[in-house]
């Protein structure tokens, strides 16, 4: 059983309300696309789901393997890709993946890392410093970071930003695979990415909502 439930979730930065009374329920296999203008709270919603900040009011609950988790507790089951997620530039791609596997307590082999890098279009670049990666390659490595532990919940903020056509196709594959494993939530401004979703959540800037 995999389920994500939001109940009347609100978030604000100081006096400014960013999200207000967001409620939904997602089951295994679901893909939710959160759409809206800049400043409408898409990234904030994903940060709440990742446990990187707490909602002002309301609750977020993950039901994973028949146990309830808060977003912070669910961190081992989450994969997060976002423009503000940075990996260690002075380490190689392989060293980054090894490091994050070790701190997550995963057992891994060199061939598993190579397979993941190949799958994400980074074959032969595993021993290059991340500092020498292009922005598109860095985005692909973010996917490697998010997918290596096979997360039950995948949170994608601007999933195809900086990616070329092949990269965008790769994201479509990642989302298709995630349907078999768990839940995906995508935040995007790109109308072409609406096709990924079973459900669309349209957010409008809080100021407009208040009117």
């Amino acid at each position, binding site marked *: 059983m995999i389920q994500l439930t939001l109940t009347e979730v609100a978030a604000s930065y100081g006096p400014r309300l960013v999200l207000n009374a967001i409620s939904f329920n997602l089951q295994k296999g679901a893909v939710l696309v959160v759409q809206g203008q800049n400043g409408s709270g898409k990234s904030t919603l994903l940060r709440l789901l990742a446990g990187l900040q707490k909602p002002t009011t309301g609750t977020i609950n993950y039901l994973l393997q028949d146990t309830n988790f808060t977003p912070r507790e669910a961190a081992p089951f989450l994969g*997060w890709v976002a423009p503000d997620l940075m990996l260690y530039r002075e380490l190689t791609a392989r060293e980054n993946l090894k490091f994050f596997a070790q701190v997550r307590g995963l057992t891994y082999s060199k061939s598993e890392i190579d397979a993941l890098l190949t799958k994400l279009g980074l074959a032969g670049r595993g021993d290059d410093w991340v500092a020498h990666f292009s922005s598109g390659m860095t985005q692909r490595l973010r996917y490697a970071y998010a997918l290596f532990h096979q997360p039950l919940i995948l949170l994608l903020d601007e999933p195809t930003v900086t990616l070329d056509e092949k990269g965008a196709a790769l994201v479509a594959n990642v989302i298709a695979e995630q349907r078999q494993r768990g839940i995906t939530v995508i935040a995007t401004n790109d109308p072409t990415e609406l096709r990924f979703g079973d459900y669309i959540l349209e957010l409008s800037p809080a100021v407009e909502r208040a009117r």
Partner: protein
Amino acid sequence: MKLLFTATWAVLSKDLRSELRTRYALNALLLFAVCTAVAVSMGVGFFGLRRDEEALLIQATLLWLALLFAALNGLSRSFVQEEERRTALALLLAAPSIAVYLGKFLFNLGLLAILDSVTSLLFISFVRVQIGNLALFIAFLATGSLCLTTATTLLAAIIAKASFKSGLFAVLAFPLIFPILIVAIQGTALALAGAPWSEGWPALRLLASYALATFVASLMLFRTVWET
């Protein structure tokens, strides 16, 4: 427990590897140590030739001031770097909080051990400090540095999230460090004078107790600081 050990080792190894490649903290620490030792030797080097109680206390004070300012300059960097390079979020999502603290703590302890060795050698060479009881001197350096590390590692995590990092670190660290600094200076002066272990024990026990108390408090508080 195995995950904690593995994750702690991973954080420590990652920080060591990053440091060896970037020399972000080590260069700053060592440069500070060399500059201080040279400046002190040119200013008050003649104190090294005197063996009276007052001169020994001044030598110990200068040594600890050099260590303190170098430590304040360098020990916050492992956390500040995570925030400035925006890698903190990736680490926060993947690693157990306690492992992050322990990894960074051990990294800072290692940095301070290098700083202790280099600064002491520089003081012995340039300031002509003579050590009466070497084992006691090393014991005071080790326990004093342990206190500095336990007190400053948690503070580093706090100030890493602030905008005025370096100034804030010194301001917050000073009241925490001040009491143990006095004990470490007086103990080191005893060691320089060649006092026996029995005279140094009370101060060493006090330093060890302080280190233990701040370490336990840091372990309890770190998760709140790191995850906020």
